[in-house]
């Protein structure tokens, strides 16, 4: 029972982590919570679904298609909706509200154009389970978990080991000065959004396969946002740890306390957590020197 709960928690947490990465990436450069990320995830899932079911592209290609498509959408999103604000040096809060507008807009666009039907990916792995010390784990979960962690790790290396990574962190503090150092902000922001979008697409497909595809599926990304905060906004390893912690915590609460008050419980814990660790687990709380 304990092991099964842990496995379930891990696989839920893995998905949270994957979604949280997108939030953290954007936060790491623009210091705002990109609430449109959930919508990009949703659109990624739709792209993947239509590629596999209407265009019969097969899973690997649909998978890549969803990632590319979501990355492009994220790029369009930033170019059309955020760039004007960024160029005007609007405070992050404004970007956050714009992001909410974008997400309301896109989500309802989907309602109007595609409709509110739920779609489900064709079964890639037939319903079957892998036994693991007497507990069951589905092959899909295993695949998603491993794949996500590899992808996140690669991204982490990119951000910490390259000049680009430093530039992203620098720009998050002061874009004007970053451009004085020769950083092309538009390009940099574009790259960040493409990466975030790609991860969104990845998360979207996994979510779609695991659950289903429908216009409001982006809402569960609230949980991912919470995960990102627990881990420390702007920190990738933090996002992963936050996702896993939240997933496992929630599962344990459901099993050992009550599934109905699970959210109250998790949310209270999150608040408690933040009160104790105000910057999340790995976030840097930069006390301004006076």
């Amino acid at each position, binding site marked *: 029972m304990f092991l099964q709960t842990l496995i379930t928690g891990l696989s839920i947490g893995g998905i949270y982590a994957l979604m949280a990465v997108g939030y953290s990436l954007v*936060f790491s450069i623009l210091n*705002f*919570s990109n609430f449109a990320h959930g919508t990009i995830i949703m659109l990624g899932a739709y792209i993947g679904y239509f590629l596999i079911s209407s265009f019969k592209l097969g899973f690997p290609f649909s998978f890549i298609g969803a990632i590319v498509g979501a990355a492009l959408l994220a790029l369009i999103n930033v170019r059309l*909706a955020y760039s*004007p*604000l960024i160029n*005007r*040096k*609007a405070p*992050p*809060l*404004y970007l*956050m*509200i*714009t992001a*909410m*507008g*974008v*997400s*309301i*807009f*896109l*989500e*309802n*666009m989907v*309602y*109007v154009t595609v409709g509110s039907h739920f779609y489900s990916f064709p079964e890639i792995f037939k319903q079957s389970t892998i036994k693991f010390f007497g507990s069951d784990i589905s092959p899909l979960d295993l695949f998603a978990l491993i794949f996500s962690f590899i992808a996140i790790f690669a991204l982490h290396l990119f951000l910490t080991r390259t000049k680009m990574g430093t530039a992203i962190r620098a720009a998050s503090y002061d874009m*004007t000065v970053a451009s004085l150092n020769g950083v092309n902000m538009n390009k940099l922001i574009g790259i960040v959004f493409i990466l975030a979008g790609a991860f969104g697409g990845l998360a979207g497909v996994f979510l779609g396969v695991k659950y289903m595809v429908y216009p409001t599926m982006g809402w569960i990304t*609230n949980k991912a*946002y*919470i995960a990102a*905060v627990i881990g420390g*906004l702007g920190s990738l390893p933090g996002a992963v740890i936050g996702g896993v912690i939240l997933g496992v915590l929630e599962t344990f609460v459901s099993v050992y306390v009550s599934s*109905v*008050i699970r*959210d*109250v419980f*998790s*949310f*209270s814990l*999150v*608040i*408690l957590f*933040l*009160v*104790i660790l*105000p*910057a*999340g687990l790995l976030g840097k*709380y930069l006390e*301004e020197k*006076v």
Partner: protein
Amino acid sequence: MEYIYGVISVIGIEIIATVGLSVFTGFTGLFSLGHAAFMAIGAYTAAILTYFYNVPFILALLAGMLMSALVSFVIGFPTLRAKLRGDYFAIATLGFGEAIRVILENLSITQGARGLPGISHFTTLPVVAIFSVIVVWMTRNFILSKFGRNAIAVREDAVAAEMAGIDIFRVRMLSLVYSAACGGLAGGLFAHYLNFIQPAMFTSILSTQLTSAVVAGGMGSLTGPIIAISFFIAVPEVLRVANMWRLVAYGLILVLIMIYRPSGIMGYHELSFASFKNLFNRKAANQSAGGRRM
């Protein structure tokens, strides 16, 4: 006509909530994603009192305000004490809002997720009008007093404010309590306008709408958020025939406001007689122009 009165009533009610929130978000600079919870608490408290206990409407409304104000300590005390930074505070309020909703879904007095139907219709247009005028007026008084200036000082530079002897925690707490009370009042009015409430009405979507109105209206303006929330409610109603498209339009409008009015509809200004005069007064306009120094 009655229908239009209805829409106006809703606008009036939401103005109360928005103006309250603008004290907290616009003037004190903290971001809340859980303000719907305060509306919910006010709504349930007032509705339960009139529905089960036949408490007079006005008393029930006051009780709703009081309850919201009290509950705001639960979230405010630990988080504001810990001086959580913007986004982290927002996430705490998001969690708080959800938690309140789950609790309402699981209490028996609230009749769970089903909600409370059959609440009396006490909230008429004149009632709304009177309350919203009073609240706007009081909020304006608040903002223009030392309490308001302290709030803005904390928003602008918390460290400097502290070094000026301003107790940051108290200032933030006062704003939170005030905005929670406004939310509670709005909730109570809403319950007695719609005659029906259920937890699902008070989701983070509603919180988002309130916050969007404050930001889109202009952080640091009262009239701006009032215009914005009226717009947000009226536009979908006008577009109701166009159905799903109205939400598309709402999202688009929100984005366009943010793009074309980067500091909100009113920015840091107020729409008032004085500001009309300012239009003709070059100097005054110059003084407030310009952003951050490089």
